[in-house]
């Protein structure tokens, strides 16, 4: 696999519009100009997964569109966030521009099926690497390590300090996610309320229908940052959730390629830049030490 790269400038895609009469107009303005450099003259071995994708001229990426910081659709409907940036990095290294990425919403319960059914080439959607999933798909990465945490109403009226305190309370999470599975198996005393997306959980917590929302801390931090008057993070992570990029089972060449891209981005700072522009900007945190990819 030989990759030659020349710099290629990319025009800003952010749309700045003047004269808004409502606050929401401002969201379109922060579409940052953070497109990674697109590699040119890339060559892949014929028959490889990458060659097929480049041939198709389209990288199909499954992501979330309702998770601030990682994958949230802006008002124009385009997803933005750290996961989205990871996908852009991969695309750029393949010589594909941002326009050649097709994002599809993959809710938690749809991620494996989408890969198995060849609806997407890769999934970057706060996707925890675990053995059960590895039986049906493969993972590149991790590119981030999160931990399961709990979000409660501001002021923490129930005094929830950790998962043990969840017994007897209603806890919201998402069907098909590892946090839901953890609660189901390890803390069965808690009454689990399951939706298809976390934003409905956030709504329910805001309205007082549930007493807690549990999932990975980074997802929760972003919800808290979005509405600090309603939410509060317990800040006591009790699991390790390494986020990987899901690829189709057996696409080992693509997995290795993504691992190379990630490792390079860890070293040359693009990974940290992506963090600063997305999740980092929202939660006001520095980029952590990058993890080490697991080349199994």
């Amino acid at each position, binding site marked *: 696999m030989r990759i030659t790269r020349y710099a290629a400038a990319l025009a800003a895609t952010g749309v700045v519009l003047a004269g808004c009469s*409502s606050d929401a107009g401002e969201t*379109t303005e922060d579409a940052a100009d953070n497109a990674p450099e697109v590699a040119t003259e890339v060559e892949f071995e014929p028959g490889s997964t990458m060659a097929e994708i480049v041939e198709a001229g389209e990288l199909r990426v499954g992501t979330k569109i309702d998770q601030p910081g990682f994958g949230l659709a802006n008002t124009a409907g385009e997803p933005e966030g750290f996961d989205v940036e990871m996908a852009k990095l991969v695309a750029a290294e393949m010589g594909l521009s941002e326009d050649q990425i097709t994002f599809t919403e993959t809710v938690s319960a749809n991620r494996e099926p989408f890969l198995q*059914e060849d609806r997407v080439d890769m999934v970057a959607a706060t996707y925890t690497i675990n053995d059960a999933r590895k039986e049906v798909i493969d993972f590149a990465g991790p590119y981030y390590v999160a931990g399961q945490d709990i979000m409660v109403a501001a002021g923490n009226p129930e005094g929830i300090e950790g998962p043990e305190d969840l017994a007897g309370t209603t806890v919201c999470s998402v069907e098909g996610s590892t946090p839901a599975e953890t609660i189901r198996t390890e803390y069965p005393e808690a009454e689990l309320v399951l939706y298809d997306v976390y934003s409905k959980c956030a709504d329910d917590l805001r309205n007082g229908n549930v007493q807690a929302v549990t999932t990975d801390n980074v997802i929760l931090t972003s919800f808290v940052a979005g*509405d600090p008057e309603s939410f509060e993070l317990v800040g006591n992570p009790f699991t390790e959730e390494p986020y990987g990029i899901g690829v189709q089972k057996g696409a080992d060449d693509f997995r290795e390629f993504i691992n190379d891209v990630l490792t390079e981005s860890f070293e040359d700072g693009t990974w940290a830049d992506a963090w600063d522009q997305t999740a980092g900007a929202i939660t006001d945190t520095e980029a952590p030490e990058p993890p080490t990819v697991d080349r199994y």
Partner: protein
Amino acid sequence: MSDSRVLFDLPGPRARRRQRLGSLLGALLVLVLIGLALWRLGSNGQLEPERWAILFDPSTNVPQRLLEALGNTLEVAAVGMVAATALGALLAVGRLSDHAWVRVPVVTVIEFFRAVPLLVLILFCFLFLPQVGVTLSAFGALALGLTLYNMAVLAEIFRAGIQSIDRGQSEAAYGLGLRKWQVMTFILVPQAVRRMLPVLIAQLVVLLKDSSLGFIVGYMELLRTSRSLVETLNFSFGPRYTFQLYVAAGLIYIIVNVLLSQLAKFVESRSRRSPKTTAAPTDLATGAAPGTATGPGPAGAALLGPGRPGEES
């Protein structure tokens, strides 16, 4: 009983006064309820014009997104409507076949798809079909689900229509020496379709509404788009525009569907005037549709006589 005024006396002066009082009290009660709701909304700041402006302010992208989403909704509904109508007519004819080897499988298909929730059908098309080699897009899965479900319902509507045609029609046609397929295509189906048009259109309204189930497969129709906008705006502003966006989505559905229903009523009033269908069918909606198609059936519409207040005719 086409005129419900049989049920009560033509009111005399005193009764009319009493009724006017009743109307007034009823109206007052409704106004109080509406007032209460508005007051709560107002005190929660939901009525601020700025919050509603977002729906019309192109710089926020919201109106464009809603419009595009409406387009997606109409697109999938249109595909479903055409396919379901065609297949439904075919199945109806099959169900009335004289040959058991045609009738039995057709009846099985109709009964099966009428008995399974649409949501499950859509999931089946989306999740299971790929395992047997048929990969559908979200659009495809939704369109196929809508088609399968509604073709079964429409088949029953068409069958009721065909069976409601006076037997003299087919007897006369046979008497003239037409074959069975000719009687079907030239005599029965055209009359049945005309007669069942209102029920048919009512079912199409149901189909359009059901396209909102596309959220389950991530198809960006009107409702999923509104929800996505809520998610985005919630994050930036808290729940500032949530209520407004739900109201907008609901209103758009209502407007589009009322327009479709009006079309149904228009078609119905025309076909009622037409001498070709004077034998007004009673309760045709009855034999049909265990879908939600209890729409403005011919029987229901008989009440829409002249001068009924509160009823748009």
